[in-house]
């Protein structure tokens, strides 16, 4: 599967309610050296926007302040969902398990 098959997909909870769009994915190197070997650990779901965060999901990125505020505002209410909480993936649809946990989407450095 390609990452671009998932990005932009609509996200649904176990009851079929639409949650938003998958706007990003998180990877972890876990000691491996090549980015190509990174493992996907989580998805970012944004309830309001299907556009990219343009890098402002990182706590360290805050300048220019106006763009930072604008992008955070566009993606307000975004949250991170662990890969374990994903029930299954269909074409343009990502369905989460019942009782999935909404985690903070901000990326620490």
């Amino acid at each position, binding site marked *: 599967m390609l990452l671009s098959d998932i990005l*932009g997909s609509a996200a649904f909870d176990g009851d079929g309610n639409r949650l938003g769009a998958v706007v990003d994915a998180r990877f972890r190197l876990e000691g491996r050296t090549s980015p190509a070997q990174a493992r996907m650990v989580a998805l970012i779901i944004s309830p309001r926007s299907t556009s990219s965060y*343009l*890098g402002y999901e990182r706590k360290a990125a805050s300048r220019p302040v106006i763009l930072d505020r604008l992008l955070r505002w566009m993606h307000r209410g975004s949250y991170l969902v662990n890969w374990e909480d994903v029930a299954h993936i269909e074409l343009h649809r990502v369905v989460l398990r019942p009782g999935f946990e909404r985690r903070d989407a901000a990326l620490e450095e």
Partner: protein
Amino acid sequence: MKRLFAVALGVLTAIGGFVDIGDMVTNAVVGSRFGMSLAWVVVVGVIGICVFANMSGRVAAVSGRATFEIIRERLGSRAGLANLGASFLINLMTMAAEIGGIALVLQLITGIGPLLWVPLAAFGVWIVVWRAKFSHLENATGMLGLSLIVFVVAVIMLGPDWGALARQALVPAVPSDEAPATYWYYAIALFGAAMTPYEVFFFSSGAVEEGWRRRDLGQARLNVLVGFPLGGFLSIAIAASAAIVLLPQAIDVTSLSQVALPVVQAGGTIAFCFLIVGMLAAFFGAALETTLSSGYTIAQYFGWSWGKFRAPAAASRFHVVMIVGLLAAIGILLTGVDPILVTEYSVVFSAVALPLTYIPILIVANDRDYMGRDVNGPVANAFGLVYLVIILVASIAAIPLMIVTGAGA
């Protein structure tokens, strides 16, 4: 001494390389209709291109990434592809305009119609892109392009009423026989001509081509901050020459011969010869830059090997894109469309596309993961944000103004 020479060469190349057919035609049209009342836009545009060329060069030198690699990385594949589509098409239009410009200059010399010159001009561009070294092609066209100083000489020789020219420039007003919408339409066209996105595609990719490092940034900044304003000064001289000769006689600029008229009136055959050399070099140089930009944008988006520093066989897809781009440009011109018209539309559509290129540059220039200690300072960000607003306004207003004014008719 050697260093002084390198600095001088860089600055002179930036001056000669600044003016292309878009700047020349738009400034002549504006001068012939609005006098010097839009000269302030050239100043605004030149400061803008200085700010963003500088930023893109710094990003390329520090991170080793050219502009479209950044756009792809930040926007993701889908939005990046939409950006690529728009950027490539507008660049293609500019490319057609420059090649058409070469054909028009050859027509001025020989009297043979431009359609016959188009394939030859495109072939000339291709062979240089294929064979010549990057630094050679940049320096040769930049230095010969300096012949356009003939416009400054012409303005002085025409002995204008300097006070009147200065008043028009410093206290700008919409001429009584022109509608305000038309004035603002041409303001956006001039802005688009000065800030054409291919300039930063080329500038940032050129930084990678020439292997810039942090220590080269001082030189790069000097080239931009001295060379581009002097290039802008040439643009204003073009507008002034048209304002002095064409405006009082109500001559519309619809072809290159009208752009040349004030120069010929001032300096006769010798001035005309300088003008021909300058225009050929400027248009040919810009044709090279846009052709390379077509290859840079697509190859950088898809992650292919690119660059003149590689042999063509090692960057085959990059070269194929440029050949296809040149064939497409020939195709546009062989429909018989007037290259001057293509130019006029290309600068306005460039204005529409400005945010696509400049917003990602501003964002990445602020990213510590890329830039380390070379992130934008408060001054660069203040300029960047002011220009972000100007760019967005110009981009949004361009198409409505084009429709309202009937493309400035």
